[in-house]
């Protein structure tokens, strides 16, 4: 990688930091937990790195490291998105008071 590429990478790095700050600082406290969980699933992107090292591995140690990295990365990405969706599903608009509630609190847990 030449110097220009490194400069580009560092530019991307700095801009991402600023975008992250800008996007998050406006989120209401109500959504902080789903947000933390949601950003948690974004760092599941690490699974792509794990796939790339699996593709480049050619020693047993390399395969073992790539396998564990794959397990970790896939767990992060799948689990992160599913649990965030499960949380956010609870924030959906409620039926107006008075209309019968089809989904009761008791069945909600099993349903998701």
């Amino acid at each position, binding site marked *: 990688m030449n110097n220009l590429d490194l400069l580009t990478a560092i530019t991307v790095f700095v801009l991402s930091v600023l975008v*992250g700050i800008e996007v998050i600082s406006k989120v209401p406290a109500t959504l*902080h937990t789903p*947000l933390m969980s949601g950003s948690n699933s974004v760092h599941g992107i690490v699974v792509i790195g794990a796939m790339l090292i699996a593709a480049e591995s050619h020693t047993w140690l390399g395969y073992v490291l790539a396998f564990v990295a794959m397990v970790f990365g896939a767990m992060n990405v799948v689990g992160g998105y599913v649990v965030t969706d499960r949380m956010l599903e609870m924030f959906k608009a409620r039926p107006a008071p008075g209309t019968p509630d089809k989904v009761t609190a008791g069945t909600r847990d099993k349903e998701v």
Partner: protein
Amino acid sequence: MDTVSNAVHYVFLAAAACFVIGLHLMNHPRTARRGNTLSAGAMAVAIGGTVWLVVHESRITSTGWLVLVSGGLVGAALGLWAAREVKMTAMPQLVSVFNAVGGGAAALIAVNDLLQADHPAALGARVSLPGALSIVIGAVTFSGSLVAAGKLQGLVSGSPVVFPGARLLNVLLPASFAVGTVWLVLAPDSTTALYGLVVVALLFGVTMVLPIGGADMPVVIALLNAFTGSAVAMAGFVLDETALIIAGMLVSSSGGILTKLMADAMNRSIMNIVIGGFGTGDSAPTAVGADGAPAQVRAISVDDVAIQLAYARKVIFVPGYGLAAAQAQHELGDLAKLLTEHGVDVSYAVHPVAGRMPGHMNVLLAEANVPYTQLKEMDEVNPEFPQADVALVIGANDVTNPIARRPGNAISGMPILDVDKAKSVVVIKRSMGHGYAGVDNELYTDPKTGMFFTDAKKGLAELKAAVGEFVG
């Protein structure tokens, strides 16, 4: 660069843009779910693009495919199972575990890269520096997050664990991984430096989190989330993958902001929390009952509380950790629904640090079908307390303690809910035990406060039945 890898890089760029938009959509409860779906879709496309790239470059061995596919399936199954089975009250632990595996993966990628290089000595600082940082940050996050999850789950003592020499270790370990990082940058082929760095960083994760009390875990988890992001970004530098740099730093900076918001809500600095403060045993209980005698409290019965609630015009519920611990959010939601139907103006006052993560209480209440329009944040609800006929506190302690307005105690200066300004206060609590800060709550001895000593879940169910008799 050939056409395919160019195309895949555009796919990654599009995915990164979707992550930003997805997080932005999380600004509002109405669009939050769409944002998460968008982000998940982008992730799926990015993974698909990577598969395309791997196939196209055709350097992967069949064992490599086996590793990739089986590892992916095992991880996905574990993640799916954990995400579906977890109880909403155990959410912080799960987030912490996902932090751990994310950081662990980033560290492993860097270890792998430094080991696999054909001529490691030829690796410039361009790879070895981010590699070393990825290992250090990733490994600290891995072990630290597991300890944090263990504390929240009760597997590790929630109270601060301090052993002789712990403070010294917490100075020595960072110093030694600074040395290890420099060593690895100067000699990227030194496996001694590599493994040494991994071990030291793993140890530091443990010794960093162990002395922090359970009350501070939410802040620690947010901080570790930020760490994982930067570990992933460093792995991106190692692999030359811009997608990892963007997504990683996006998480890292947003995690940093969340950590700061959370620490501000407790009126403490992040440094103060990491070094130790609340619940470390350092801050001895300061307040004692008047004249050292046990403070006088007024215990009231379920019927007294029910009458007050049934004939109130405005009721504010103040849910705290006790509610979450007793998993009584459904009972509270039912009681609130009954009162609302009876024409009582009901709202919930949610302190930013109620529950175990910022916003955790909102998630628990949402689980119990509480309309989010009834959830009010501290600044919004505080002016409403003087109009409230009854403020019902369920298991919240430090965040309602009026002594925070006075200097000279453990919680001085912490923003609190103005529960004491309500016309009448009822506190549901099992005993007179202290909150995390270990100080007596003056609210409990206030003449207009009635203490309803019971388990939150049982007490709220009884209350609902009793209120039902009055309004039915």
